[in-house]
């Protein structure tokens, strides 16, 4: 299967490999809830909910891919915009503002706050980007790293507004103006108004639709004047500028669009969890998303989606399942004595629990060794890896030229 997919885009460089992958992804998205319900005998809500959560991470990864994969800007503080989006939802769609100096609650509709969260995050992206995008490579990474540390800390410490470490809870349940009920929700086929999204299935469907829209839009961008300019900036900023591309503006645009995705995902995440807390937006979130796109295949949207799904399931399904699994194996292998703690030994379950990020690290190292270009690489990355990395031509080159 994989081989046939690869063949499609290796034989003809002009052919876009993605239709086939997208078809598989779409089919998967449709079949997954059916599989979840059937395989668990109707108890699949948890599995569906997990995938809806994974969708949030896919959104984040697609957005970060615009920043890193398309425009080549290393953003290590991406979770900051995620936090900004989530807190925007918390402020604008809950009772919370009553307990702040404002003393009036605001309850804006779900859709409106999704868009507001998106624009607020994009605004912060512009604010951070305007002074910093003149920096190159490593410097930009450090600045964004700092920003990513600052934002959750601000939310934690401005407790008058954010109730600090406790976070904000009891956020409004999202309500859609219209929704189509049918056999899938156990109802007659009918349009309902003011539909409350509560069931995991409804969240899942909304997530899949949003993802579909985002994938189409980002693909449009990639194959447009804007996408071309991003690629050029990534390849050679000096040459791009000489060809009439306003490089600072294009980088700012990529940064803001990435931030917008993050804010959008944050607002959705807040609405789904009905809770935001500063703990959810740390550095590890930024890094997880970065790992998702690198592992999936930077620059390639289906690759990024598959990478996100994989990393998400490793972190949130596989690793938590390890300790009980280890205990079970130990018992079955006649090593039952390892299970309970004794003396220094914490018990095998606890031991594995302590070591779980070691396993995570091992999985990452192995994947990168076996497939350095990512699971489904963009053609560019693949070329770079097989033909040698192209030199990072920067301002030094211009300096060099002047002495020639």
């Amino acid at each position, binding site marked *: 299967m994989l081989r046939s997919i690869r063949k499609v885009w290796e034989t003809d*460089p*002009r052919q876009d490999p993605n239709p086939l992958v997208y078809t598989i992804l779409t089919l998967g998205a449709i079949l997954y809830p059916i599989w979840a319900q059937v395989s668990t005998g109707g108890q699949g809500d948890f599995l569906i909910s997990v995938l809806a959560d994974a969708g949030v991470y896919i959104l984040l990864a697609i957005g970060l891919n615009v920043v890193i994969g398309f425009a080549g800007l290393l953003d290590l503080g991406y979770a900051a915009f995620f936090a900004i989006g989530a807190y925007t939802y918390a402020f604008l769609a809950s009772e919370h503002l009553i307990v702040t100096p404002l003393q009036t609650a605001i309850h804006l509709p779900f859709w409106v706050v999704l868009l507001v969260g998106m624009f607020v995050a994009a605004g912060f992206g512009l604010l951070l980007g305007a002074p910093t995008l003149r920096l190159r490579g490593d410097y930009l990474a450090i600045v964004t790293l700092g920003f990513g540390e600052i934002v959750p800390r601000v939310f934690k410490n401005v407790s008058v507004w954010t109730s600090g470490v406790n976070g904000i809870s009891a956020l409004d349940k999202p309500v859609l103006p219209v929704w189509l009920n049918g056999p899938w929700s156990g109802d007659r086929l009918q349009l309902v108004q003011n539909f409350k999204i509560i069931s995991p299935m409804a969240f899942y469907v909304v997530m899949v639709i949003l993802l579909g829209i985002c994938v189409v*839009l980002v693909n*449009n*961008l990639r194959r*447009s*004047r*804007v*996408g*071309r*300019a991003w*690629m*050029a900036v990534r*390849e*050679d900023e*000096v*040459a*791009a*500028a*000489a*060809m*009439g*591309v*306003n*490089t600072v503006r294009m980088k700012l*645009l990529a940064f803001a669009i990435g931030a917008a995705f993050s804010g959008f995902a944050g607002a959705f995440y807040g609405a789904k969890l009905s809770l935001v807390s500063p703990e959810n937006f740390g550095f590890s979130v930024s890094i997880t998303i970065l790992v998702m796109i690198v592992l999936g295949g930077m620059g390639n949207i289906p690759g990024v989606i598959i990478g996100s799904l994989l990393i998400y399931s490793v972190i949130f399904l596989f690793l938590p399942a390890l300790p009980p699994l280890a205990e079970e194996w130990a018992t079955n292998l006649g090593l039952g004595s390892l299970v309970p703690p004794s003396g220094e030994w914490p018990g095998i379950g606890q031991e594995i629990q302590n070591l779980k990020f070691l396993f995570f690290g091992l999985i990452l190292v192995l994947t990168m060794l076996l497939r350095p270009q990512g699971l489904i690489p963009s053609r*560019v990355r693949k*070329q*770079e890896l097989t*033909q040698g990395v*192209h030199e990072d*031509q920067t301002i030094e*080159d*211009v300096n060099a*030229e*002047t*002495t*020639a």
Partner: protein
Amino acid sequence: MTVATTAPRAAPAGQDLILKIDHVTKRFGGLVAVDDVSFDVKRGEVFALIGPNGAGKTTLFNSITGMFPPSDGRIIFEGTEITGAKPHQAAEFGIARTFQNIRLFEYMSALDNVRLGQHCRSRSRLWDSLFKTPFERHEERAITDRAMELLTFVGIEKRSEDYARNLAYGQQRRLEIARALATRPRLLLLDEPAAGFTPQEKVELMRLVDRILAEGITVFLIEHDMKVVMGISRNIAVLDHGELIALGPPEVIRNDQRVIEAYLGKGA
């Protein structure tokens, strides 16, 4: 063929000068790379800038295209002062360039390189790109058509889908010229376009320059190969250690004592 027609903004009629370098100085710390240089480039001519290595030729190019604004002096393009303009603004004004060490977008196709060159002459906004509006589709088709025409103009249309880095050396130089022409310049700066060329390729390059000239584009080039320079330029400026030591038509330059000294050393 009307491939490389000039930029939308028409030049004032009857204007003879296209570029005026007015007492330009460029210092890097204590080093004076370009020292009080002045000369004019006339519309429709081939103007060459020559000089030994390290004379400051590329620095002057970089000053004209906004990469390193001059420390002193003015650069006037078609009567408008453009001193200190940003590189992308210089391109918008109608000045395009190629680079001494080829700087293509290596991992973009040849076609995409030339399409990118049309960036500052296309008008699709973010909105158009996101939603593939009819305007955007129409513009993209026009951009692709023109890019193909330009690739044909420089004779590498067969390689349109290949990555720029996979093109042969001479083809890469041609692609850089096509990309520069895509910005619809009225002044084209070529930085050592014949470097590394075989005699046959040099002849082809000179023909290409003639055809670019026929499109109404003024060509301003840096070149070391004297056959090329003397063969196609109408006027030549000679730089040595940042100073302008001679200026004039080829036959004058050829016999100029200071030029001979600069190239061959004193007592030659």
